[in-house]
């Protein structure tokens, strides 16, 4: 017996029956929304050359990628993200296609997380990418699609908006080098007010430093815009804030009410995102269930510069959420169990095909005897039995009988 022959690698798991069904339901709901809004499905390979995900432009650290080598010794990774491969696709096979490209995907991504932390290394994501479109209409389209997709699955989520450029515009006003800037960014990302203050205390105290100090606290409802307005310090920052406000005002019409929020301290993957960024949170889910944003510089990495925006939904997280909210789909039982005694096996199979071709569901018994077949039907809770001999004989196993069968 091999040591690891009966377990799955850490961070992975089997999905069985109800759990599997909930996943499929979520997948289908999301796909239906994406398809009905004119997005076309694509599937990219489960493994790609590591060069596709260079850490600088993808914001994905090399150590979190599962790596292997192909026969020629070239580094291959298991897809750690879907946006980079889709950008590759858009820049190569779809370069002459009519723009904008409206693409959606449902596929697994792989991350090598630290052991024993309970995080999944394999995550099913479903998302869209709108490539070759800039401006407010494109931003609204992406965000409205995200809202519709999530609303189909769970009514109880909050959507949060930010702008990747806002931090950059303020950081540009500070006399800091790249390393300091990264330190400041990471303390803002962690809302580590104390460490941010320590970093900023070392600088000459200008209005821009004061603005940076406030940045991680600038989150909440619409009042954030008024709070942030006096802190901009440059045309650029002010125009970004104004733009975000106008997006916010438009999105209010989607009926999110106070479930629409703003966080100007959203500075994750700041070299990757260029404009609006957004994420969604749900009660009882410790992490974001949806992440997205505008990434206008990414395609130039593949020599095909074009603006783009997209998002991805964590299908596993949404499925878990539905499960916790008590959504329990029944695994369907076949309407009828078909059995053919010796000599009538083929007739039974043809009868079964007849049932399924008319939209019914049935199982063909693989037991040798009628007694075994009846016992099996009782264990499985199948109520109708069709015994296909010279004639077809229908047998009903009512519930009491079925229960009695279980007890035996």
């Amino acid at each position: 017996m091999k040591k690891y022959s009966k377990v799955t690698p850490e961070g992975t798991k089997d999905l069985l029956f109800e759990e599997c069904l909930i996943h499929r339901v979520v997948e289908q709901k999301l796909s239906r929304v994406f398809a009905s809004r004119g997005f076309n499905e694509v599937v990219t390979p489960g493994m790609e050359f590591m060069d596709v995900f260079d850490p600088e432009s993808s914001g994905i650290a090399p150590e979190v990628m599962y790596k292997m080598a192909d026969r020629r010794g070239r580094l291959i990774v298991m897809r750690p993200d879907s946006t980079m491969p889709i950008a590759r696709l858009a820049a190569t096979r779809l370069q002459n296609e009519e723009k904008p490209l409206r693409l959606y995907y449902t596929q697994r991504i792989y991350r090598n997380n630290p052991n024993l932390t309970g995080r999944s290394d394999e995550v099913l994501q479903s998302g869209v990418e709108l490539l070759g479109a800039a401006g407010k209409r494109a931003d609204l389209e992406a965000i409205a699609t995200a809202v519709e997709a999530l609303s189909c699955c769970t009514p109880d989520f909050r959507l949060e908006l930010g702008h990747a450029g806002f931090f950059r515009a303020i950081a540009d006003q500070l006399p800091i080098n790249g390393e300091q800037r990264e330190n400041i960014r990471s303390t803002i990302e962690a809302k580590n007010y104390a460490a941010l203050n320590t970093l900023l205390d070392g600088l000459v105290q200008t209005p821009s430093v004061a603005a940076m100090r406030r940045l991680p606290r600038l989150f909440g409802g619409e009042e954030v815009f008024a709070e942030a307005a006096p802190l901009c310090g440059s045309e650029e920052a002010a125009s970004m804030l104004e733009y975000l406000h106008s997006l916010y005002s438009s999105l209010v019409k989607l009926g999110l009410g106070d479930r629409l929020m703003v966080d100007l301290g959203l500075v994750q993957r700041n070299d990757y995102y260029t404009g609006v960024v957004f994420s969604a949170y749900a009660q009882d889910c410790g992490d974001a269930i949806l992440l997205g944003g505008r990434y206008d510089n990414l395609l130039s990495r593949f020599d095909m510069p074009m603006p783009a925006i997209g998002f991805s939904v964590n299908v596993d997280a949404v499925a878990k959420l539905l499960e916790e909210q008590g959504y329990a789909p029944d695994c369907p039982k076949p309407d009828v169990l078909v059995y053919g005694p010796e000599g009538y096996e083929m007739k039974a199979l043809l009868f079964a095909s007849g049932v399924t071709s008319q939209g019914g569901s049935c199982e063909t018994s693989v037991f040798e005897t009628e007694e075994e077949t009846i016992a099996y039907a009782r264990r499985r809770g199948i109520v109708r039995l069709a015994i296909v001999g010279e004639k077809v004989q229908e047998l009903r196993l009512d519930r009491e009988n079925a229960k009695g069968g279980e007890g035996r």
Partner: protein
Amino acid sequence: MKPLRIALTKGRLEKDTVALFEKMGYDCEAVRNKGRRLILPVGDSLEVVLAKAADVITYVEHGVCDMGVVGKDTIMENGSSFYEVLDLGFGHCRFALAAPQGADFWSGYSARTIATKYPATARAFFESRGMDVDIIKIEGSVELAPLLGLSDAIVDIVETGTTLRENGLEIVEEVCPISARLIVNVASLKLRKREIEALVSRMERETRKEKGETK
């Protein structure tokens, strides 16, 4: 409304936090007479969970606790995907590199061996110095390692330095100061902003007051 759930690191940080809550007017009777229970109500709006330091981070990261009180040492060692919103100003100590008294740690070319309970912190420190070292993880009294000849130095938490002195060690360099931090789950801060911000700012005010008193 569900109470906010806050995980406290068992022991001194738990006592200091409870003292802080009591100054803020919370009824901490249940925590003071906890018996063997590990989830305890504090007033109507808070629920305290008692856990080991690293577990506080795990519970907060997964969102089963909204907030947590944990030492900066644990945060540095275990990484962070949560918000670290407040330095609580208690549980002060520091990470330090210590070597046998009189030994010149930095001299010579041979690679150093470092014993520590905090391998990630030690590695990050020496990486920032561009120094290649061998790190050995020790679970108990790290001071033993250089005494027994296993390592050249240790990276450990130092409060007063008495233990170091009594074992013939001295501080070569301070790595960084440490104190208790209030951490918050990313989704919780967004979903329960008002409650959490109100609590954080009250804790901040009380912490400041205390700092003022001791000065």
